[in-house]
């Protein structure tokens, strides 16, 4: 284990990006912050800039207008970083995959480490996925 991954697993900082979702996944991610679930007990903080982030939580189908921005955000994130596709839309495109404005799914745009299916996945599912990711690092 090199020093980068060692430092990384202590406290993951998360950046959340919506690329054409219906809000549900985004609200469930925010719900992880609320007192009931309190994701901060795992050392995770939602940050306001990809430049501070270790993990990208990405929701949505990646619309054509968003395509460049997703790549840009991934580019701006310091490596090593992890990409988590939250929700069925980000995993596969859900029922929107036949739409004309679809440029995804996410895995065709940037490399994805973790998929969390569900429409929407509950906060518990999101937390458990991130904890699984942490354990994998060890």
């Amino acid at each position, binding site marked *: 284990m090199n020093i980068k991954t060692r430092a990384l697993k202590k406290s993951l900082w998360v950046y959340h990006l919506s690329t054409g979702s219906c809000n549900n996944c985004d609200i469930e991610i925010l719900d992880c912050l609320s007192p009931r679930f309190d994701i901060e007990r795992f050392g995770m903080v939602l940050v306001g800039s990809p430049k501070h982030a270790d993990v990208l939580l990405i929701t949505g189908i990646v619309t*054509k*207008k968003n395509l460049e921005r997703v790549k840009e955000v991934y580019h701006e994130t310091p490596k090593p970083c992890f990409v988590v596709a939250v929700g069925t839309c980000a995993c596969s495109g859900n029922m929107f995959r036949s739409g*004309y*404005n679809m440029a995804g799914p996410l895995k065709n745009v940037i490399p994805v480490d973790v998929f969390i299916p569900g429409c929407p996945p509950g906060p518990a599912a999101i937390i458990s996925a991130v904890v699984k990711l942490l354990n994998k690092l060890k």
Partner: protein
Amino acid sequence: MKLNVLLKENLGNMVKKFEEPADKRIYITIDRNNLLKCAEIIFKNLDARYVIASGIHNENNFEMLYHFSFDKDGVIVSLRVYLDKEKPEVESLVSLIPGIEYIERETWEFFGIKFLNNPNLKHFLLPEDWPEGDYPVRKK
């Protein structure tokens, strides 16, 4: 006075067809040259609320529906105009209803219906580099 009587009286002979398929739903077909006049009567004189406009691609023509709501009566009045298949064009209502700008831009990029005198007819929902002549919501 009942709303349907009031509408017929105010719009006069501009009405080509007057339909009431269900309770509280009125569809009025008019000529597209009379659109601005009719919309002004409904929106200004009769004080209706602008709801939305919807474009429809039919087999032989295009259709625009302008929905207005009379909230006191709970009635939705839709003005229906038919547009030419080859060259769909209609007068813009921006001068009357400022909020209608966005739906006109959207209808333009989805169906290719041109709104005359809309000052800001550019891409709204689709990317700027969307291929010209490709209108996604038209029937194939």
